[in-house]
Each structure stands twice: as structure tokens, then as C-alpha cells.
């Protein structure tokens, strides 16, 4: 629709704009939950309040809620206590393949409910690397082999962080040296990826529908910076020296949430795109309560 409007604007026939009533009083705040839990860390849930889209105030942390974690039989595991800035902290660690229920009570806002599980840890068998060139650019091609558990649907999120070394030398003196770590943009051409849009992404989302129960060889490529500039005794260089590849086995709810969030970010502000609904598994509220299991593999380049 907006595309059409922009075309019309070219012809100058949009006649007018006016502000129309929007009753924000009809919209009551709800609790927004940001709670991704992993088996290697203790419970940590963030609670804030939502607001009307025309409310210009900032989001507010909620500090007076009661946050409970139950097991699947409704036995209380732990009450998370507010620590700071809307974060509720626990002392225990969630365990994989156990179903956890979240219940949050608040004096004035609707109580919220959710439940989720941490999937199994995925075994990364190994990663093969090769170097290729395209249009004069150097690429690192990764072939990641991992074992997908059978008889169950698994959902994956992959991310790559590159460690780079930056160096400036003038007449033999080192002027600058830094090791930095950056999240890498990857070329996701493997058929399993479900991101949509450009194949260049800083995260890859996919499920095991094409390789359930098999050893998957996942192919991705990423630019491998390695350059050197020398002029009149001034040397400036940058090269990647290491790589950490993360393979998250995530719950189905988390997968839906991340996929829709990614589409939302792609479409947000784009006048040509249909507005995107972000998935939530919070009853009476917004956000996500979901488990993820992370494994990683380091490579020296």
C-alpha cells in the first residue's frame, strides 16, 4: 500500500494528511519478558512493561513482580529475585530436556505464563576450511559437520565471530596493535537456511527437516580479510587470525521468535513490505521465554 502511495507522491496528488484520534487509554500495559535460558548459566529473566505506540515515554523495568519457575508437574523449582534493572536472578541452572514453566505475578498488571525446554547439546564432529576467491575477494569456506538427533525436530541458530589483528608500523616502530572480535556476516547458500531475503546474514536459522537424524555437513562462506599496505616505510595490515563458530540448538518457540524478529527488522521502516508479527510464547504478555543449548568450535587461521 505504501509503495502505491510513494508512486502517487511522485505525481503530487496526495491531497492531505491529518491526525486522527487514537485512544491509547484502551491499551493497557502488559509485561514483556526477555528470558533465554541455557544450561551453562543460572536463571536470569528480564521483565519490563509494554506501552502504547504513541506513548513517548521510555520502556520501564518492572522491579516488583514475583517470578517463579516450576517444573512440568507444577512443583516450584525456584523463585527468582529481582537483582537490578529489571533482571530476576536465580541460583540454580536449568537442565536440558526438562520442561520449565514460568509464572509471573504482578500487583497491577496481568499475570503472565509460559513454558519451554532446553534442547540437547549438539555434537560438532569437525569443521573443514578451505580458501576461495571471488571477484578478487578472499573467502573462507566452512564445512561444519554435526550430528542431528533423530526422531525429534531440531532448530538451529548459527553465528560466527572472527578475531582480527590490526597492525600499524612506521619506520619499524609499532604505532598501533589491536586484537578485535566481530560478529561476521556469512554467505548462507546452504539449502537448509530459512532466513529469507539476502543470503548475507550475521546469523543463520534452519531446522532439520532435510536431514533429521543424519550427520549434516553445513556449508557457509565468509569474507576473510587479509591485507597489507606498505608505503614509504609505513605499514598497515589487517588479517583474521581466528574464528569461533557457534551452533545453538534452540527450542521451537525460540526459533519462531528469532525468525519473525529477523523478518521484523528487515521489514521495519521499509515502505514496500508487509508489517511483520513477532512471535511470542508469553500468555497475557509479550516477549520470549525459551531454552537454547550452545556449542562452539574454535579455529586458528
Amino acid at each position, binding site marked *: 500500500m505504501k509503495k502505491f502511495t510513494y508512486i502517487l507522491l511522485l505525481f503530487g496528488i496526495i491531497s492531505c494528511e491529518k491526525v486522527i484520534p487514537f485512544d491509547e487509554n484502551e491499551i493497557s500495559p502488559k509485561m*514483556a519478558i526477555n528470558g533465554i535460558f541455557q544450561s551453562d548459566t543460572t536463571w536470569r529473566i528480564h521483565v519490563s512493561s509494554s506501552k502504547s505506540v504513541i506513548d513517548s515515554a521510555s520502556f520501564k523495568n518492572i522491579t516488583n513482580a514475583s517470578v517463579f519457575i516450576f517444573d512440568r508437574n507444577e512443583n516450584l523449582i525456584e523463585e527468582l529475585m529481582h537483582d537490578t534493572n529489571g533482571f530476576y536472578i536465580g541460583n540454580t541452572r536449568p537442565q536440558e530436556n526438562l520442561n520449565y514453566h514460568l509464572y509471573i505475578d504482578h500487583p497491577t498488571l496481568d499475570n503472565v505464563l509460559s513454558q519451554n525446554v532446553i534442547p540437547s547439546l549438539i555434537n560438532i564432529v569437525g569443521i573443514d576450511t578451505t580458501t576461495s576467491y571471488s571477484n578478487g575477494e578472499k573467502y573462507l569456506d566452512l564445512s561444519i559437520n554435526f550430528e542431528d538427533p533423530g526422531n525429534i525436530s531440531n532448530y538451529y541458530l548459527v553465528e560466527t565471530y572472527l578475531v582480527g589483528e590490526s597492525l600499524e608500523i612506521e619506520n619499524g616502530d609499532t604505532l598501533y596493535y589491536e586484537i578485535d572480535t566481530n560478529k561476521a556476516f556469512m554467505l548462507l547458500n546452504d539449502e537448509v537456511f530459512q532466513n529469507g531475503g539476502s543470503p548475507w546474514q550475521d546469523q543463520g536459522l534452519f531446522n532439520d527437516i532435510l536431514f533429521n537424524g543424519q550427520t549434516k555437513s553445513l556449508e557457509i562462506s565468509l569474507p576473510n580479510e587479509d591485507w597489507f599496505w606498505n608505503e614509504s616505510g609505513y605499514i598497515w595490515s589487517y588479517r583474521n587470525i581466528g574464528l569461533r563458530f557457534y551452533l545453538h540448538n534452540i527450542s521451537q518457540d525460540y526459533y519462531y521468535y528469532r525468525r519473525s524478529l529477523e523478518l521484523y527488522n528487515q521489514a521495519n521502516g521499509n515502505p514496500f513490505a508487509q508489517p511483520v508479527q513477532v512471535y511470542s510464547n508469553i500468555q497475557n504478555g509479550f516477549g520470549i521465554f525459551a531454552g537454547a543449548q550452545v556449542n562452539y568450535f574454535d579455529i586458528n587461521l
Partner: protein
Amino acid sequence: MCVFKKSILLLFLLPIVFYSQKNVTISGYIDEAKSGEKLIGCTVYDLKSGKGTVTNDYGWFSLTIPVDSIKIRVSYIGYGSQIYEDYLSFDIVKNFSLSDQMLKEVEILSTKEEQVHQKTAMSTIDLSMEKVKALPALLGENDIMKTIQLLPGVQTGSEGTSGLYVRGGGPDQNLILLDGVPVYNASHLFGFFSVFNSDAINSTKLVKGGFPARYGGRLSSVIDIKMKEGNMKKFHGQGSIGLISSKLSFEGPIIKDKTSFIVSARRTYLDVIARPFVRAYQRNQAAKGIGNSGSSNNGGYYFYDLNGKINHKISDKHRLYFSHYMGRDKAFLDAIDNYSYDTVVGVDTINSQLGWGNIISALRWNYMPSNKMFINTTLRYSKYDFLVGFGFNQTETTPSTTRNSNFSYAYISKIEDWSGKIDVDWMPDPDHLVKFGIGDIYHTFTPGVNQFQFLQTGQSALDTTFGSNMHYAHEVSAYVEDDWKINSKLKGNGGLHFSSFFVGDKNYWSLQPRLSLRYLLDENSSLKIGYAKMAQFLHLLTNSGIGLPTDLWVPATQQIKPQFSDQIAIGYARTISNKIEFSLEGYYKTMENLIEYKDGASFFDSETDWQDKVHIGRGWSYGGELLIEKKMGKSTGWIGYTLSWTNRQFDSINFGQTYPYRYDRRHDIGIALTHEFNENVNFGIVWVYGTGNAVTLGLESYSSFNSSMVENINSFYLPYDSYSVDHIENRNNYRMPAYHRLDVSINLKKEKKWGERTWSFGIYNSYNRQNPFFLEFTRDINGSPQLSQYSLFPLIPSFTYSFKF
């Protein structure tokens, strides 16, 4: 297939079984006396036997009655009736010409046509072109599609556009036929005007449900538009000069009473009017030292269309027609920049354009092998293409060298059809009108191709083309139907439509039963019921859902199945005092295999095949429609009201939950009235009201971040370390304000020595209602968010000067 064959045999045999006594047949053509233009839907009724029929789409009729003296009444709305009396003992051919002139052989009776309660057809409306021309129109451009939007069951898209949404269907689900040839994009100027020039149109019929078996290929409606055939008697011309366009038509005999022609053309001239102003502005700017005196820009927009038809009467039994339409829209911008530096003289030329258009042709042969049979054979061609183009050329010349580089990009999409069709009307007796036929359409789909070319002096040329694959398909169809007067009260139209679609290695087929029944409750009222199954082997990929030229026509494929619908309708019709027709209908329609772009997908993304960019789902619509129409007298017009619900459900959209269709409109009212003060002055008024469109808006927002990635919760600051997500409860979750508008017009005619002239004055949106076009959250000068509504058309006055000779 066995069931299909048996059904066809049964339908053919039934009329023969029921027909056994000695009969004679009178057949012929009925035309308008002044012009020879054929009259469609004209009633032929034998007052003695009580048998009757109507003329077909070519003005031909056949009436079989018992051997006896006859008293035939031939009547058509707006024309004087004729009575023909004779004693018939053998079949005869008799042609009639109707006019308002008293003829010696005939007797003028009151004007009459088949009334709404007598018709078997449900959900079918015939529109008179006189009504279309008398009603007010946006910028004075009379438009058949805009008039159809005023009828119940037909929803308008967005303001000003000519897209049609019939009983919950999409804009692709309308079979728009111009002289029997499908038109794929019926829009000029991004949908504000339709491609149909009202001066060239003879008749228009809208079918929304209870589809007869002869129609197929679309789910929601048939808009059957017939062009004029050209005056067989005298040379005539007509034209008009309006605010944005002018049009001119000529028609007349090539050989009197044997061959006629009509040609009609229309063009907008905003680009022509604007050109001197743009040049003057550029000269002025250059004189002030702003801009480059060596630069010039030229841009604009125009559309044109051209209709032509030749009609040749070979003999009483053979007629030949050739009709052609071509129309094109073009928006363009050309820029030339002359420059020089040192010893280099250079010229940069940039051209960009957006264009789309249709070409439609039909060659038709009417053959009457007997006075009970009429055969219409048609060869058809239809093409719609859309083009976005950009070109850059740079030439730099020095005293010793010339260097040239040229880059061009084009995005092209296209659908092209070649087709053939044979339709037979067979009238074995007055109680049966059997129609059957076969046809084949060869489609070529080009859903989206990118072309890049790069040429530079001294470099190897780059010329590459990529995009979605072309598709080739055959759409074969066959049908049989019988319009059967079962007894004095019960009449029905039953039939079967078979269609098959061959695309690649895949074949889809569909057998579609159709049935309409009418039961007369008394002399003035009837109950009607209709059922139709429809299949559509084409899809329209649309980002906006409002029918833009960028929308892509694509076929059903191995991956994407054809669309199907089932529709049932029940209605009550009544004619009050022979003047006012009242009809009330309820309907329920389901639609399967609808497609929608995935979130974020766009036709510009040519790296992904279109089949991977769509979701498949279903839709359904139900509601009631009321139409009260007065066709005769000084004041004529109609009041239409629709109460409806339309929903969609896609497993991958809205998390699988049902959501309202964008054009789900609970209440829709269309009132169109005209009043003739005298022969020279008539007044028209249109008022429309519609529940606001459903749009998707995020009404609440919340913070989002990956809580597992927060390293230090003590330094976490919510407004900076998270981002805002607008929560959308459902797709199309918010209603725009209601739409309503009043248009008025007055037409002042005057006879002149050379013919007739008419001044038409109109006001669109008379009370200057700011109707919503789209909504958006914006910020005021203090930065506070607010909901803003954008509107298109305020009060717009218009005038048109038209003439006839």
C-alpha cells in the same frame, strides 16, 4: 470422466425427449434501426403461445413454436416494441430493427424487457452505457469499472482505483472480457482509470455468482464487455475534451448494410501541457545561475488507448468481425547533461521509464447453419507486459579519441495468450436453450526477467539476462449448459464446465457443475438458488493487493496448485408496479489455494524464484446483498447495500490464525441516481459508503533483547540496550475510518446544425470528505507519536465538452 460423458449426453438428449410435436422456428437478428448496432438481451415473445426467448450476445434469436398464427412482440428497454403477426407453417428468418420511430408494419407497445424476477440468472447485472455516461465521474472520465463498483457485492479497493473485489475475491479473480478476450490489467494511471473507453462500448454484463457453464477460468466474477460494431447506415463521430484526456470516435459503413467500422482513441495530455512550463522553468533556473545551462530534463506521464472493430456481413448466415484494442501507460524521465573540461567535451544521457499495456485482438466468425443453431468461432490474442527501464550513456570526446560507455537495465514481466474457441447456441424448442463449446488457450508467462547490458569502448561487452523461469501452458476447456423452462413456474440453467491445464509435466483438471433455478412465486416475484464450482489456473502475485501494474501473473505449477471456489447463493426477486426491481441475495463462498507473498518478499528479488516467495492458503466470504433498481421514467438508478464478511487463513501467515481480508467490509452502500429534467438537461448523483479497510498496525510496543548475551546487568540500561518491537495482534487488526463520498453532475445537451454537443459539469467528493487512503504513525513537532491519516482526493470539480455528429 464417465460421469462427465453421461451428463453431457443427458443434457443433449433432454430437449429432444421433451420435444415431439409439430413446430416452426422463427429466427433472425435484432438491431437498432438508426445504426444497425445489434441489441443484446432483447426479448422476443409470442403472445399467443406464451413462448419467448432473448437475443444472444450477437443480437441473434431463435424461437420455436407450434404451427399456428403467431403474434410476436419484440421489446427492449429504451426502445419502442414491435409486433409481428403472421401464420407460420414453415421456418422463417425475420430480422427486426427497433427504434422510437413509428413504423408502418408494426405497432408500438409499452417498453418491456425480461424483468428481474423472470430471469433464471442469479447475481447478474446488465449495465447500460447511457447510465454510465450520465453518472458523475472522477475528473469527468466516465468509467464502466467505476460504475460496476457501485453495485452490491462489488467492493472498491482503495480510493480512486478501479480494482474490483467481488464477494470476497481478489482482483485477479475477475474474468474481464473485451469482445470475449481476457484482459489481464484493466487499469490506466495506476488504477485510477480503466482501459475501457466508454465511447466504444456497446454493453456490459457483470456476473458475481450462479455462473453459467460457458464461463470459466476465474473464481469471483465475469465482466463481459462488448464493443460497438460500427454504424451500418451512416457515418458518425463523437468525441470529448476533458480535464486530463480527450477522445475521438468514428464509425460508419464501409459498404452500407454490409460492412461497418468503428475506431476510437483516447490520450491524456498532462505531459504535453506540462512540457513548456518545465522548459521555461529550466531556462529561468539557468538564467539565475542555478543548474547547468547545458542540461535539460524531460519527464511526464501519459496513457493512450485505441479501439477498432470491423464488422462484415457476408450473408444472412455468415458474419465476420475483427476487433482490436491496444493501450499503454508510460511514465518517463529523460535527462541530458552537456559538459566540458580541459579538452574533453562530454554528454551524459539518462533515460528511465515505467510502462505497461495490453494488446488484444479477436477475429470472430458467426455462422448460422440452421435457424436453430448459431455458431461463434473466435481466434484471440491477448498480451499484457510491464517494463521498468533505466539507461545511462556517456560519451567523452577529445581531439584524438572518443570514449563511450553505455549501461542499461530492464525489468520485464509479461503474459501472452493465443487462443481459439467455438461456442454453439442451439435452440431445439422454446423451453430449451442449449449452449456448448470448446476452447484452448496457449499461455506464455514471463514472471520477471532482469536484463543488464554494459558496453564500453575498449572493453568486452556485458549482456546478461536472469530471473524467474518462463512458463508455457495450455488451458483447455469444454462446457455444456441448458437453459430449461421446466414448467410455467420453474426454470433452470444447469451445466458442466470442464477445464484442464497442462504446465510442464503437470496436468490439472477440474469438472465444475453449475446450476441456477428460478421458481415464480406469483406474477411479480420469484425465489432463486444457484451453485457454481469454479477453477482458476492463474495466480496474481501482488505486494499491495490493489492491482498495481507491477503485479505478476503466474500459472499454477507443480508446486503451486490452481485456485478453486464453491459458491452457493439464494435470492428473492420482485418487480414492483412494472417499474422497480427488487432483489435480495445471500451467498457463501469458499476459495482454496490462494497465494500471498511471504513477509518481506518482493517482485524485485529476482534471485529467488517466485514459487519460493509465496504462501498458500484459503479464504471464505459470506453475506447478503440488496439491490433496488428503477430503469424507466425520468428518474432512474439504483440503491445497493451489501453486508458481508471475508476472511483468510494461511498456515504461515498470522501464525495460522484466521484474519480478515484487507477489503473485508461489513457495510457497503452504493446509490446511483439520474434525473432528466427535460430532453436537454439531466442530473446525476452518486453516494457511496463503506466500512473502513482492515489494515495492519502495531498498537503496542515492548522492549526486546537477547537476555543471555547481557554481560553486565548492572550497567544495563533498558532504553539503550534494547530495541522496540511494535506488537501486531493480528494481520489486518485495525479498521480505517469509514469511507463515504457524494458526487454530483449535470449534463447540458444542445442540438446544433452539425449534431449535438454536451457540456458536463461534475463535482467529485462534493462535501470534501477526507477519506482514508492509508494510516501511519508519525511524530508531531514535539516528537510525540501520533496516528496520521493520508487522503487522496478532496473536492474536485470537473468539466467535459463532448460532441456527436
